[in-house]
């Protein structure tokens, strides 16, 4: 449901913006070019870009973003309680280009080496009963799951709101809504002891089917850009 609302909002915003599409961008006569830096915070991490405003509406950016966080939770399944440490790591080294087609709207796209690699490691919090004995957590074994994007280099596409880079003033602010295409995620499962069958290729394939639909990594990005140099193009 949340996705649907988000999508409808997305479409509505675009529809409203397009009603003004015929309006000419007033500063089209601008011929100045600039170089600057951006700080960014997004669902794919925190980082920065170097940008080159090649033309007034066309910007090339190279940047880096990264994010890591840990989260502990418990998986309870088949008589087993697994104390699970979830380590989420993502980020990207990006090379993108953007086009400011309206005064407050732009489109941007490019490629990124996506560092998305969530992983979880679970160890039994206690033994499990088996007949008259309690099988120790070591006997039960442990389980590690790592998710990797299918593609090493991911295309990125986003629609932006606000200014991609500063125009007159030295600072600008923009928001991007978009996604990396990472392909169907691949799972790497390692397990020991009684959990070893969780590594069966057949079982992994079944789990991969579950995440197969997540081919896009959604991105909401906030950019704060600062112009460093401006030079005239003649």
């Amino acid at each position, binding site marked *: 449901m949340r*996705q*649907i609302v*988000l*999508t409808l909002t*997305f*479409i509505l915003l*675009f529809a409203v913006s*397009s009603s003004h*599409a*015929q309006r000419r961008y007033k500063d089209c006569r601008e011929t100045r070019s600039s170089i600057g830096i951006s700080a960014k915070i997004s669902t794919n991490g925190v980082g920065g870009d170097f940008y080159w405003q090649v033309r007034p509406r066309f910007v090339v950016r190279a940047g880096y973003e990264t994010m890591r966080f840990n989260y502990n939770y418990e*998986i309870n*399944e*088949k008589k*087993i309680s*697994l104390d699970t440490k979830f380590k989420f790591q993502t980020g990207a080294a990006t090379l993108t280009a953007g086009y400011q*087609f309206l005064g407050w709207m732009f*489109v941007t796209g490019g490629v990124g080496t996506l560092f998305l690699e969530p992983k979880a490691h679970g160890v039994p919090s206690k033994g499990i009963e*088996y*007949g*008259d*004995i*309690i*099988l*120790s957590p*070591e*006997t039960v074994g442990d*389980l590690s*799951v790592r998710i990797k994007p299918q593609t090493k280099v991911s295309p990125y*596409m986003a*629609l932006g709101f606000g200014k991609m880079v500063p125009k007159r003033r030295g600072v600008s602010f923009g928001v991007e809504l*978009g*996604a990396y295409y990472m392909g169907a995620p691949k799972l790497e499962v390692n397990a020991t*002891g*009684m*959990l*070893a*069958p*969780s590594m*069966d290729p057949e*079982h992994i394939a*079944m*789990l991969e089917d*579950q*995440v197969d*639909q*997540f*081919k*896009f990594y*959604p991105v909401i990005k906030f950019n704060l850009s600062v112009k460093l140099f401006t030079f005239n193009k003649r």
Partner: protein
Amino acid sequence: MKNFNIKLYGLVLLAAACLVSCDINNIGKDENGDDISLLRLDLPKFDATYLMNFVDENGQLITSDLNISFAGKNGNSLVTEAGRINETYRVVGGMLNLNLNPNIKINSQNQIDFQIKGAGAGMVVLPYIVKQSLSGERIINVEVFNWQTLQMQQSTISKNRATSPITVTTPDHKNLSPLAVLSGKDNGNGYEYKMLYMATVSGEYTCLIANAGEYDSWGIYTMSDDMTSAPKQSLQLNSGDLFTVVTKAKNLLEGKIKVQLNSGSKTSISVGYTVEAGGRTYRGTLNGITPLTTAIEQIYVPSSDKKAKITFYPTAPYKLDPSTIDIADVTTAGSKVDATITTNAASPMRRYDLDLIGYCATDKSLTYAITKTFQYSLGSKEISDDARQWNNGALVSGKASFYMIPNQRYTFRISVNNKWYKYDITTNPKDIYEIMHQGDAAEYVSKYEMTENTDGSYNLKVEITNDELCDL
């Protein structure tokens, strides 16, 4: 500009389609809407399994009921396949299959050590100590005596008593006549059983050995004593107590032989062997899947003569090369033999690679694959149960390879929780329909597929449903 906007609309709609296409409501469900599991759970793996055969003097399994118990360091470490621990195990048919507690791992720092003891109506179980320092399956033969046989020996014993160097005196200082001569039988811990006695009155019994200087240790063990401690020369006994006189030779060393059996492919084998060392002959069987790394342990040799000779006796159509190997010193860590198993090309037998999966009938969530080692036997269906020669082997993770003659019927039995479950196996495709329609809802063959490989061997894919698996 209009054209550009149409493209952009398309892009946005594509992105929207991507977002809504992720149907998170179906995550964690299979195509039928049933919950799927992140974890796949195996049965616990046992570092060691023990097949204990209780046999008479001729090596035949005892058919009378026995009550077996365990003592020693790991006496409480033996469990059934279902993880049950009993103080005593009732053995019917002379076989007991137990496993090492899966929480215990065997390594050089943790040698397994337990004593088998027991009793039965009119039967005497000769206690035996098991030591194991390498994981794997052990087949242990424990000797059991029938009272009637012992009584028949009395006349022979009486004749030889005068020449025996052992004297046991009763509390009233009379010489006690033995029930049986046990010379040549070892207790697994370096001691040799000499004589079996029964206390006639309560009190202190004393043992004397004329040539005591020849032994490192000697004395009396009752049937319930902890045999890891040295025996005593005198002991308080109650009337009716059974006891043995044992000796341990001087400068006796314990050795073992590491055995590596290879073959060109993974093959389920059962190979008999004898080890001649220190004037004794040790007999046993090696079970497993090649390449099989195992050890023959508890070989005792005098320090003056540490050599041994091992001879393998594979069942048809296997051949072992070499079949006899001399070992210079069984007490060194490098005491190791390698042999390669081949098959006799002239044999009409063909290799069948069995892939067996077991299901619990009443609870489909317990559809465990057979992932541990079970004991199996295979014999011709054409021969009656009494006369049938069984080829034994280990079913490891549901897989076993064995040889059969095409277009024949065989009986395949598998030991689960110390009970044999029999199934018909056919090498005749025409019989598969019949095999599939045997049994009842609690125990039946739900799949039987036989395919021939280019090398003349066959693959057998069999699925059985058996309620016994629900308890594992």
